[in-house]
């Protein structure tokens, strides 16, 4: 079976202008040569620190941002080659939930209008049954239908996020990008929203790309995890396996960085030294080598290729190169 979404060698370089005539002096490689597959009904968790290109990648898979290179196949159709009309036709099948529950809802529209907007654009409902479908959606995401005439500013952050979810799911997408949907919310609300997303995913069987910097959230939801560092995916694998035996030193560091509730487990390992390097001027060789506890000479000069550990797992690290270190 072919995957629902197939991303191949996708890149996004942002030009940096400088000098008197604002020539392009360099490029920021926000996303650099990333490939992955997403099967129907699968949840892929995309983890990484701020600024590593997760959001850029997510937006490119929906073609909300034009990639610099690469291909994105949705149902075997290269969406980067589609014209505006064909892309619009495909839009209902791929939706997105945003991080910021405040900026992602137009303050001029009431909830009914916001949730119904997609159905209105694609003429998926007539006037009468639009109202019904909107109410149905509201119930589904845990909002009271009697509040449908209210405006976004009358809701709390968690409720607003529910409105955003209803807006995306009203079109019954096959593929949903969740761009850090809970990181702007209180911890208590986070769990509610994550559980809601899980429930809705199980009901509809849609595939999800769940972007987060929080491994815990991703662990809870996804079957597969991809770890990103400075624009590249450094490790992928089934969630359980990856958590149990992280291969890439960066993944290990991420797992160790999690504060433990058990005092005996605390402070066993030193946290990762240094900051994430600037993507404007990434380190030579393996981008992770200046912070890597296991870096050796080769890492400073040569960029590692993707190595398969087994059928499901891959890692971008010299330690796993069968040709030796």
């Amino acid at each position, binding site marked *: 079976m072919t995957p629902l979404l197939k991303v191949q060698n996708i890149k996004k370089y942002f030009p940096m202008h400088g000098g008197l005539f604002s020539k392009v002096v360099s490029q920021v490689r926000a996303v650099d040569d990333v490939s992955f597959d997403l099967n129907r009904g699968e949840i892929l968790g995309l983890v990484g620190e701020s600024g590593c290109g997760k959001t850029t990648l997510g937006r490119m898979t929906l073609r909300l941002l034009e990639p610099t290179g690469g291909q994105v196949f949705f149902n075997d159709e290269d969406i980067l080659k589609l014209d505006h009309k064909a892309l619009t036709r495909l839009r209902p099948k791929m939706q997105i939930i945003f991080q910021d529950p405040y900026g992602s809802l137009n303050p001029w529209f009431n909830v009914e209008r916001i949730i119904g907007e*997609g159905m209105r654009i694609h003429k998926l409902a007539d006037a009468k049954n639009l109202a019904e479908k909107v109410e149905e959606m509201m119930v589904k995401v845990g909002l009271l239908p009697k509040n449908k005439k209210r405006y976004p500013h009358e809701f709390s952050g968690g409720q607003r996020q529910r409105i955003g979810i209803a807006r995306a799911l009203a079109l019954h997408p096959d593929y949903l990008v969740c761009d850090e949907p809970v990181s702007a919310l209180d911890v208590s609300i986070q769990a509610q929203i994550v559980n809601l997303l899980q429930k809705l995913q199980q009901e509809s069987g849609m595939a999800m790309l769940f972007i987060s910097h929080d491994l815990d959230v991703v662990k809870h939801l996804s079957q597969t995890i991809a770890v990103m560092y400075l624009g590249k995916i450094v490790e992928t694998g089934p969630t359980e396996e990856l958590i149990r035996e992280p291969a890439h030193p960066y993944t290990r560091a991420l797992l160790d960085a999690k504060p433990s509730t058990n005092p005996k487990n605390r402070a066993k390992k030193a946290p990762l030294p240094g900051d994430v390097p600037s993507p404007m001027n990434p380190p030579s060789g393996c981008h992770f080598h200046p912070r890597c506890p296991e870096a050796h000479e080769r890492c400073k000069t040569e960029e590692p290729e993707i190595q398969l550990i087994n059928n499901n797992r891959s890692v971008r690290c010299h330690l796993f190169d069968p040709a030796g270190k």
Partner: protein
Amino acid sequence: MTSFSWPARLSGAFLLVVLVAACFAPWAAPYAYDAQDFMNILSTPTADHWMGTDRLGRDLFSRVVYGARISLFIGFATTFVALVIGTIYGSVSGYAGGKTDQYMMRIVDVVFSLPDLLLIILLTVIMGRGMAGIFLALTLVSWVTVARLVRGEVLRLKEFPFVEASRALGAGHFRIMTQDILPNMIGVLVVTLSFRIPLAILAESTLGFIGLGVSPPLSSWGTLTNDGWTAIKFYPHLILFPSLAIFLTILSFNFLGEGLRDRWDPKGASRI
């Protein structure tokens, strides 16, 4: 939302009175603007002539009321047209971005760097003294400011996730422009309108004062001050009352503008 402060309310009330008087000038003014009273030439304010009369015996109060018509019409009409043109131009420029935006804004820069007064004088000279020339000239110099402001707002608003959400839903450019961006600019536009109108009134007065206003016997506040200043030593009321009308109206617009800004646009972006 806060309620309006008392200066804003008072200003609003005053402007309403002026506006009604201007609209219904034939009823609001005790005399016609060109009616002469030969018994009372250059009289100081009396019970018959509240603001006195000019050298032809015309009632100054009536002329100020009729003058409000022209001054306010020029103020509102030029600002409104400039706002429409500027909004469309600025929206297209900001939304399109890239090269289009750059070229469109360079044109704005060119128009912006032409000296306003010189341009206005040239145009009124070419078009002849009259409403059309003044209207065209004032519109020409004021749409660029609106265009710049609107472009900035569009650039800011189009980065909001709700715009991206609309794109993800499949909304076209026109839909995004008219439903996501323009409505969220209304506050800024209303405030701009209230600050641009007095500027246009002032510009019209300046033109009238330097002798490029409407032709007599019509009067605008500007031409009235022009009539008045020659006799400023002996008959100061002739310049005092028209100037006062200009002054109070502009002041009121500014207070009202402040009030509207507090209410619609407290931080430059009210509802988001």
